[in-house]
């Protein structure tokens, strides 16, 4: 079910832990699986669990505990805006409002063309770069003025 490439990445993670502690790699493995599939369906989670020799339920517990796993389909580009207080003092909420208006969606919604999902995020540990947004869990966008957002959206649409 998972590609060879993903399995190779998971092997790299498994190698970090004692031989009898493969389960330690589950967080990284689920993240890699999510990268490949776009989101984590029950079958995908079960697949990861089997590969690591753990109960599917144990892997599901992890997938549902941590915020950055998507247990339902999301748009091609998931944009998570930090609106926590330090960011809000430098425009985090304004940026979120700007994105809502530009994309025509609210938090936790996806545009009808399936291109964008908007999420509200908690502190990402980069408050000095506010306003910030995180793209598809991995790409940190700093100092996101409306002009910078316009540019980013154009780039993503093209």
């Amino acid at each position, binding site marked *: 079910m998972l590609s060879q490439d993903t399995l190779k990445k998971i092997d790299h993670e498994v190698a*970090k*832990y*004692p031989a009898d*502690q493969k*389960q*330690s*790699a*589950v*967080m*990284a493995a*689920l*993240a890699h699986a999510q990268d490949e599939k776009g989101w984590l369906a029950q079958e995908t989670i079960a697949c990861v669990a089997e590969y690591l020799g*753990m109960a599917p339920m*144990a892997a599901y*517990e*992890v997938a549902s*505990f*941590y*915020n*950055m*796993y998507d247990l339902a389909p999301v748009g091609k580009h998931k944009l998570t805006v930090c*609106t*926590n*207080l*330090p*960011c*809000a*003092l*430098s*425009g985090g*909420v*304004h*940026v979120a409002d700007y994105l809502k208006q530009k994309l025509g969606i609210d938090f936790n919604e996806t545009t009808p063309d399936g291109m964008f999902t908007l999420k509200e*995020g*908690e*502190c*990402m*540990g*980069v*408050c*000095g*770069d*506010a*306003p910030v947004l*995180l*793209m598809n*869990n*991995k*790409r*940190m*966008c*700093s*100092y*996101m*003025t*409306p*002009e*910078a957002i316009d*540019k*980013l959206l154009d780039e993503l649409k093209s």
Partner: protein
Amino acid sequence: MSIQPILLAGLDASTADRTWRLADYMQRGGYAALKKILAENISPEAVINEVKKSSLRGRGGAGFPAGLKWSFMPRNYSGAKYLVCNTDEGEPGTFKDRDLMRFNPHQVIEGMAIAAYAMGVECGYNYIHGEVWDLYTRFEEALAEARAAGFIGQKILGSNFNFELFAHHGWGAYICGEETGLLESIEGKKGQPRYKPPFPASYGLYGKPTTINNTETFAAVPWIILNGGEKYLELGKPNNGGTKLFSVSGHVVKPGVYEVPMGTPFPVLLEMCGGMRNGKLKAVIPGGSSAPVLPADIIMDCTLDYDSIAKAGSMLGSGAVIVMDESVCMVKALERLSYFYFEESCGQCTPCREGTGWLYRVVHRIEHGQGRPEDLDLLNSVTENIMGRTICALGDAAALPVRSFTKHFKSEFEYHIENKKCMVPPEVQREGSNIYVTPNRVPSC
């Protein structure tokens, strides 16, 4: 007053692409402390003693003396022991470890290797906050460099000392910053904190003796070994050794990370940040969102060290300084923080799981003009029912902001309840929270 940084000396974002590399670190005298220990056969006890002398206190929030913590690890233990670095920086306002990790990751690796040597540990993990993926990949590359150069791995620099180090990433859960939640997370489980005792030094990762320190704590160690614990202590003030990174956010001209000696007066730090952006200083949260807020007149008289801030009724915490000017409605600010704790409570302790919900809903209704006269007493009673009744400190972290906001800014809460609106006009608030980017910074993506 001249300020000598030692953790981030000469480092900033403009040169980060080069300075994180091993070659650059070596040019700056990197790994000299590890080499010295191994070449001169300095005993583990002597290393721990030096750290004790330095009065280095944990930089993750609690300020526990690092040398003392290290001495809790069992000496003659036959099985595996572990060393863990806490880079799960997610406390709102905290972004200092990020700069260490992107400008100078080898300093963290060297500090961990020295700590491992001192405690006889052969395997370590660095747990990196999920949202900062670039730091994770960079750290993995730095580890590969260090391994190739023989600074980690088997028989380090020809000695009998072995130490393997790996990176582990989080995936969006603030609670994993709590040390036992973090251990559960490395074990591949939900990050729900464990009862203490037993403490990690006796029952830690995989049930083995484990020491956990913050990234900045480890980063300070090479300097201490090279220059001596006393020298480090002298940089700060008694019982508060060394320098500390402060991540300043909010209404200052230049938000960012600043390294200053412990005991630096708060107004000096504020001046380094270019002062206030527009309005007058209203309040400061000095140690991350979990620390009690302090009104302007109190914080302006504080020096930045554990003891002074504690005396003023707050905590130095992680050194995350959130600066607010008079455009901020304190009810709204608290509402946002309370939402955070409600969202991030791991759910295993009823007082925290339910209590954080109560706190958020009550502050929310006050903010939205539906507050009731008895609400302030209610908030107080909810905090009393949380504090001291939970497995970990997240419950207290949720309660302390509520208590301090309602104590120092009581009149604003009362005004909201009586008048069903905010004391600070909405347009002033909107203006004050406008999009603001530090001068000379460009959007990057």
